[in-house]
């Protein structure tokens, strides 16, 4: 697993998500899909948003563009993009931003393209919406984009319909559409999950090339840590609607702090290593309607048992800097004096070491 050399990270954030909260009001109760999420993305960087299925990654990304449909609703938070809170913007302004300054690609490329329009028309539409471009010039640009994303024979391919494409080609078309106006931010929601492994690599290369060539910042949403290692500069790990750890990608793989992240990394199969079984994290993501009190990971947490922490099941820890630039949401690293159990020596040592 090659860890990508990260970029200098001095630049200011292009997007800051604060306390983002999106609930779904279903008949069974309120599903707290995204429950107070904070993270930021810097100009030109690739932020990996990682977590298990159903932890709220996709809802987070859809919330940024305000693409949440009923019964879902963004109930609180701020999504500050270049200084403006997107959640406070009138819908008319939001619509102008979508596809122009922030664009998005999805997990199922073939079903994400409209079956009744040619792919050329679907790309041209982006220019029509945002630039009032004339049809012919826009068509030329669309063909150029198809060539850029590596579609062979783009002139004739532009006239084909989505059902005539393979999954990989469809995702290239989606990327062409998303990159048409050189957005400042691209949200890629599991862009390769539905594709073959060889195609996956090609698509990731393409996203990385575009990121490097255009300086478009990318939020890469995935459940695949391998992909994060290859692509991301920084990582936010999500669990049950919350960010539990956020750090540079190298640190994450060398020294993950949260027991959940550690579990995720442990469960990556290593090529050549002979094991009877892969390591797993016991249990599953909690029901987002009826969340456990305290830390949401506590019921599955081995470290909690190991250290005999009782506070975990009672009070929820906050997302705090355990080390500079390394945020984690875990009682192992947060001062819980005033609460019950005293710190065990090992933790105390760890904490002392971590403090500058």
């Amino acid at each position, binding site marked *: 697993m090659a860890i990508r050399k990260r970029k200098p990270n001095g630049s200011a954030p292009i997007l800051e998500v604060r306390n983002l909260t999106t609930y779904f009001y279903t008949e069974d109760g309120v599903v707290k899909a995204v429950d107070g999420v904070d993270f930021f993305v810097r100009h030109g960087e690739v932020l990996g948003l990682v977590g298990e299925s159903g932890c709220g990654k996709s809802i987070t990304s859809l919330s940024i563009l305000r693409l949440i449909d009923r019964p879902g609703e963004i109930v609180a938070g701020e999504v500050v993009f270049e200084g403006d809170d997107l959640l406070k913007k009138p819908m008319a302004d939001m*619509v102008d931003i979508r596809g122009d300054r922030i664009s998005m690609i999805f997990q199922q490329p073939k079903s*994400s*393209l409209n079956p009744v329009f040619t792919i050329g028309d679907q790309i041209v539409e982006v220019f029509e919406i945002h630039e009032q471009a004339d049809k012919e010039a826009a068509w030329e640009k669309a063909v150029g984009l198809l060539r850029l994303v590596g579609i062979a024979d783009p002139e004739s391919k532009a006239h084909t319909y989505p059902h005539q494409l393979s999954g990989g080609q469809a995702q290239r078309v989606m990327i062409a559409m998303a990159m048409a106006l050189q957005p400042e931010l691209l949200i890629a929601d599991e862009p390769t999950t539905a594709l073959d492994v060889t195609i996956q690599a090609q698509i990731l290369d393409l996203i990385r090339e575009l990121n490097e060539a255009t300086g478009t910042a990318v939020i890469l949403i995935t459940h695949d840590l391998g992909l994060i290692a290859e692509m991301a500069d920084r990582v936010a790990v999500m669990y049950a609607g919350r960010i539990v750890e956020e750090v540079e990608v190298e640190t994450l793989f060398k020294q993950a702090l949260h027991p959940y992240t550690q579990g995720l990394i442990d469960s990556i199969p290593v090529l050549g290593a002979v094991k009877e079984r892969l390591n797993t994290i016991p249990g599953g993501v909690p029901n987002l309607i009826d969340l456990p009190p305290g830390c949401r990971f506590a019921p599955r947490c081995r470290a909690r048992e190991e250290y005999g922490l009782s506070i975990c099941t009672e009070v929820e820890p906050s997302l705090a800097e355990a080390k500079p630039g390394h945020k984690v949401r875990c009682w192992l690293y947060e001062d819980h004096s005033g609460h019950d159990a005293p710190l065990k020596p090992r933790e105390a040592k760890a904490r002392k070491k971590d403090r500058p």
Partner: protein
Amino acid sequence: MKQFAIRRILYTIPVLLGILVVTFVIARLIPGDPCTAALGERATQSACNAFNKRMGLDKPIYVQLGIYMADVLRGDFGNSIRFHRPVSTLLLEKLPVTIELGVIALLLATIIGIPAGILSAVRRNSTTDVVTMVAANVGVSMPVYWLGLMLQYLFAILLKDTFLWLEPGKRLSAGLSSIPFYKAWGLGISTTSALYPAVEFISNFFLFNSVITFDFVVLGDALKHLILPSLALSTIPMAIIARITRSSMLEVLSQDYIRTARAKGLVERMVVLKHALRNALLPVVTILGLQAGTLFAGAVLTESIFSLAGVGRSLFDAITGRDFPVIQGFTVVIAIGYVAVNLVVDISYAYIDPRIKLE
């Protein structure tokens, strides 16, 4: 496409032959016989024998069928037992009335039903949605004849002497007549001319005829007379179209490509009308074709209630009068119409959805 159409038309030949046989048989299974219907209950046996012999009804059924089929293949639907006129002439006279009524009713059903369905889907579970769907359910449960009578009662009787008053039937008000376009244009076409049936047929479309002769008084009057019958006839198809549009639209709106369209920056109106509607239309178009059948069935009742001399009314009269050639001829023509509408529907699929290839 052309090949597909030709093949489809060829496929309909056995269907139409089947319809010929079935209507021939069913017409003869109706209790009662043409003789007593034509000559009265007290017709003597010998009078009836003579009548049957004259009409060819004394021959064995299969011989009658054979003769009939042979005639039809030559384009001869025979003569009406009651009117002693060729069935084809009757058809040319009556068809325009029914086509006019049917087209207006289908237009009404479509231009109200589809937007109502879209609105319901876009604002699902809202008051608009609930009201529309309740109305659709009521509409679909109302028998045409009952609705027709209620409309007549409301607009012709209760609202008499108000500006909303509408006549309870007929195609034009007393004293008005539609002047056939060939007369208005001064074309001297005699009743014996070969063109006469064709121009007569065309001029019997009162709306079309009055438009091309700029006779807006007749046009307005004819439209006014069409309001109630077309409303009665369109209610059920309208309700069905609204419900199908709604459910189809709801399904399409949850598709991934709708999310893409929104993420592109399209305004919601365009998302619905451009990206969703075309995908949602396929089942609606299918239903539209099938509703052609409902319209013909409804036309029988509507035309009877509103005293319109169309195919439906004539068919009804022919059945009560045991007028076998008319029953058969009219039914076959209705069947051809139904098949033709559905052929158009099948071909339109390919235009709506590129994934459908007509082979």
